[in-house]
């Protein structure tokens, strides 16, 4: 089932008097339970496309339809609410809150998403997700005592704790070594299938494409090729 549709999405930036078109009318649809990777050279517009889809910046033209709702017509507060409750984010760096323990990072995300779970149920949910990302033994640790791979696992746990419908991952393995990159990709693939999440990911690491269902190749603001 299609959950996300991008319809003729354009993005232009103005630099002084020069107007530059980064995205030139992108059409895209994402299905539930699938991992889609956006690949392409630097400056091809893949990260811009991901951030527009995630509601982090507006499109200049076109529509972003999520779950039947036109996000481009929503107020910034409505978009924020969708980001908090329906979307999950994993970035190139983990970006964990330095003064919160692993458990607290996840509890905060449940808070932000205005989860209706009781305090006990929240704790149980945190334990379940930490087991899934194999970080349950570090739940009382602060980010400063975690390795890069561990931090990224916690970031993934934070991104899925509130059971989002879509997971956005912007170069999630870029700051990791080859072994850890594979672990993280395997985890994302596993989570997407287990929790029936839709994942849209940006990567330039071709090795990681073996973990995805669809690959969309971009160049100069257009989709060059789309395939499985």
């Amino acid at each position, binding site marked *: 089932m299609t959950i996300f549709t991008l319809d003729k999405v354009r993005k232009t930036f103005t630099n002084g008097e020069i107007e530059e078109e980064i995205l030139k009318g992108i059409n895209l649809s994402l299905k539930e339970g699938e991992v889609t990777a956006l690949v392409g050279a630097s400056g091809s517009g893949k990260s811009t496309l991901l951030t527009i889809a995630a509601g982090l910046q507006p499109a200049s033209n076109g529509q972003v339809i999520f779950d039947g709702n036109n996000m481009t017509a929503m107020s910034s507060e409505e978009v924020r609410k969708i980001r908090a409750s329906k979307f999950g984010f994993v970035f190139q760096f983990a970006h964990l809150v330095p003064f919160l323990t692993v458990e607290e990072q996840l509890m905060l995300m449940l808070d932000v998403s205005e989860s209706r779970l009781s305090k006990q149920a929240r704790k149980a949910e945190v334990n379940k997700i930490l087991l899934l990302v194999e970080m349950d033994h570090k739940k009382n640790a*602060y980010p400063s005592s975690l390795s890069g791979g561990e931090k990224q696992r916690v970031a993934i746990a934070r991104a899925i704790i509130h059971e989002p419908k879509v997971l956005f991952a912007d170069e999630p393995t870029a700051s990791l070594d080859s072994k850890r990159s594979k672990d993280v990709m395997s985890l994302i693939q596993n989570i997407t299938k287990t929790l029936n999440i839709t994942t849209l990911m940006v990567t330039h690491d071709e090795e990681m494409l073996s973990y995805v269902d669809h690959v969309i190749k971009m160049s100069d603001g257009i989709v060059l090729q789309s395939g499985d």
Partner: protein
Amino acid sequence: MNIAWKEIKKNKVRFLILGSIVFLVSLLTFIISGLANGLSQDNAALIKDLPKGQFYMNKDAEETYNLSKIDSDIQKEILNKQKDAVAFSIQMGFLNDKDDKQQSVAFVASTDSKLFKNVKDGEIILDSSLKNKGIKVGDTLTNNQFSGEFIVKGFVDQKKYSHAPVAYINMKNYQEIYRVMEMQLIFTPGGDSSKEFTGLQSFSNKDFLNTIPSYNAEQMSLNMIVWFLVVISGMLFAIFFYMMNVQKVGLYGILKAIGIKTSRLFKMMWTQMLFITIIALIMSITLSQFFNMVAPEGMPFHLTFETTAQLSIVFLIIGFIGATLSGMQIKKIEPLQAIQQGEA
């Protein structure tokens, strides 16, 4: 989840430093305010202890009560019209004790009134600070302008004028010492400025205090220091939270990206500001009140709970403004920018 408290717990030293600075600044403010109040009492307790009303002096005196001479007919007219009105004079002078040691005093003489001590011819009532100089009830004191002798009839607490102890004397004795028949001032309790009398200028209690030489200058400089310290504390908060926020731009951006409300980030900052300020104020209030109790007797220090409470509220408001101003940058943070900047 209280993320404000979690951050304080994790970064104890950082918050302890800010708390210590706020504590020291507020303590210094309370101490200087106590000194300002104490000096004000020492300079003009005699006037400050009077109820709200109107002071009248001669228009020709050009707001200098020393030069004022109230015409006896006008004085009679006012005192007849308003029964609780009082005419009085204040003059700096000296008294010699039995060992011929000179004591500086402010002589006060008045018509019959409940507001001033009424003394008989040849009697004197002194401020209790003169007890420390060895003067006792029944002692005989002299003045080189006075033909007779003054017998000490008693003491009154905290009656000072121009940093000198007050000496209440009879009007007749005053007229002999200063060779004037007229009184300098008339005070009408509860009177308002709309009541005018020919040739007289009216002053409220506050306006009259400002005509006392040195009072205004002394209070103005001390109050300026107090407000300067209050402003400094506000700036401290602004700078501290600005530095903290600059360091956390990336973090705030990511938190915004995952959907946290900007208002929650502001609440986090305000909670931290309140926590630090309240703890610092509790400590400085306790210490300044303790100082109020143990301050040496000769030190003019007087810190009321009212003044402390007022200053504390001002500290909280200034802290809030300072933190909020520095927090305006939180509102401007774009999540996208934080993501592109990399790990904070």
